[in-house]
């Protein structure tokens, strides 16, 4: 219980800091924010921007104004010379795409990394193991967006097997949807697979030397069963650690890979806001992404404490 309260207090502090940071970004703008956001807007529109964001008020008032709107789902507006559009509508349409991409690439990562990790631990030191090791070392050196472009060219353009651009909504055509997501998900996964696999491998090697494995073996249990039923679970805590470490990279990677493959996710919203100098919108989307990241980390921590009682009791 004390553990939960401590975590919660920390979470609140971090959330306040993160939101304040995102809000404060607008203060970093050199020059006048209103002129930057809406350079050719008529004076009354400029006036409206100031009033709406309380830009003429002290900073804590601005922050409170922004935060209280933010928690109610009002992410501010895009300001154009013709008028304004709410950012939340845009985000509402695009976040599922980003979420899908993250989930798919995580699934793909685990689907490939776990069998590879388990198997390479089993054959540790063999030629296959060393080859895999070297391949993974190379895989980790390819940036996700670069791999995305390589795949888009060879698989998308040259072979024409999969689309290299564009998004299909799952309810429109599920098969095409999956096809449009394979290359983006794969480009995100390859680097992650390397990390997951290596960690699982070294942990499995350690587990396989434990007495209970020798015991299981002496009872005549099949290798397959020992690997999957006995050895995998105690080795999976580190997988979770690596998952935690990778979430941030995954979010950053997703945003860039979306651009490479022309997927209308949050990355596209972010670049759109950057290109159009829509800094109020940018601020809110950054805050949103950061908050999601904070919560994903909390989730991983909670999972961790479920799996490992030492953490829950604060002794680890």
């Amino acid at each position, binding site marked *: 219980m004390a553990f939960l309260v401590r975590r919660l207090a920390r979470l609140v502090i*971090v959330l306040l800091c993160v939101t304040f940071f995102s809000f404060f970004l607008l203060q*970093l703008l050199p*020059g006048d924010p209103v002129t930057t956001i809406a350079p050719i807007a008529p004076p009354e529109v400029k006036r409206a921007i100031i009033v709406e964001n309380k830009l003429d008020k002290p900073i804590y008032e601005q922050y409170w104004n922004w935060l209280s709107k933010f928690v109610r789902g009002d992410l501010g507006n895009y300001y154009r010379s013709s008028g304004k559009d709410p950012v939340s509508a845009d985000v509402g349409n695009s976040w599922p795409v980003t979420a899908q991409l993250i989930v798919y690439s995580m699934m793909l990562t685990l689907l490939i990394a776990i069998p590879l990790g388990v198997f390479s631990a089993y054959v540790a030191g063999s030629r296959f193991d060393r080859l895999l090791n070297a391949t993974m*070392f190379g895989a980790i050196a390819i*940036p996700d967006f*670069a791999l995305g472009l390589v795949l888009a060219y060879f698989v998308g*353009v040259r072979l024409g097997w999969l689309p290299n651009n564009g998004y299909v909504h799952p309810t429109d055509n599920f098969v095409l949807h999956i096809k449009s997501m394979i290359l983006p998900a794969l480009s995100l996964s390859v680097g992650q697979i390397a990390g997951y696999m290596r960690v699982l491998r070294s942990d499995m090697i350690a587990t396989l030397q434990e007495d209970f494995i020798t015991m299981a073996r002496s009872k005549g249990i099949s290798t397959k069963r020992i690997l999957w039923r006995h050895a995998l679970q105690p080795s999976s805590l580190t997988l979770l650690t*690596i998952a935690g*470490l990778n979430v941030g990279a995954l979010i950053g990677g997703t945003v860039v890979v979306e651009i490479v493959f022309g997927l209308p996710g949050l990355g596209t919203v*972010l670049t759109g806001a950057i290109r159009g100098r829509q800094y109020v919108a940018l601020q809110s989307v950054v805050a949103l992404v950061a908050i999601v990241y904070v919560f994903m980390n909390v989730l991983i921590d909670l999972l961790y404490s479920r799996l490992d009682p030492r953490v829950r009791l604060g002794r680890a």
Partner: protein
Amino acid sequence: MVAPELSAGPLNLGTPQLQGAAAGVEVSHQKRLGIAGWLAIGWLGLLVGSAILAPILPVGSPTHLYLDFAGDGPGTAGHILGLDTNGHDVLAETIYGARESLIIAIGAVSAGILVGGSLGLIAGYFKGKIDLVISMLFDILLAVPALILAMSLSAFLRGDPSQGAGLPVEIILVIALGIVSAPPLGRITRASALTWSERDFVTAARAQGAKSYRVMTREVLPNVLPAMFSIALLAIAVVIVAEGGLALLGVGVDFTTKPSLGNMIAVYAQSDLRDHPYLVFTPIICIFLTVLSLNFLGDVIRAHFDARETTL
């Protein structure tokens, strides 16, 4: 093996972001360089050498247009890596691009080491409240995904160039990427400083009446440096990649005046992937080889100094 310095404890809210390169793949446990090591050094030497010597190398200017050869592929006489559809020489662009990327990466990592390293050293040496405050600061910075943090900093610091108020983009990128790389570098330094500060020779120095500053710089820092250095190589690799990501997000250096490896990828990927793929692949291969070499050497150095002993 997880790079031990980078695995945040399970209780940390924020988690280090350097993993792209350092997510814990280490290729060798041996301390010798081997052929691969020398190849890595060779590539980095070539890269850094040509980046430094770019203005006096016979490659011409990256912004010069060879209109007659526009769009010719690799192997064109006088233009070994080919030209883009506007007539830019790709070799010149790549060399100057690598120069730009290296300047940004080395600048950002130096800034990160300076800021993060000193904070980490102070936190690890003094412990207690100071440690608490500094660690909290690191945690907060790590609570935003690294690339998103760098992107938002560079976007907002730049503002509206037509208003002419902002800093040069390279400086902005160095600041943004420096801020992003400070917390992970700082945490590693802190962890390392924590253990070294417990050693007897530090106590001895203190007992002799040495001031904190002197103990930190003369006794603790030299022992912390190897761990920092091997991580710095990895960090440079990560920042080179991050520069590419930022270019794709639209906050990189301007391609038309200053090509970088990142903005070459960003610009050519948009228009030339289908018909002139070599334009996209040249900078990609360049980044790949550089990151590969840096990761490899970082691992060798870490194995050599056995960084594990110096970290918690």
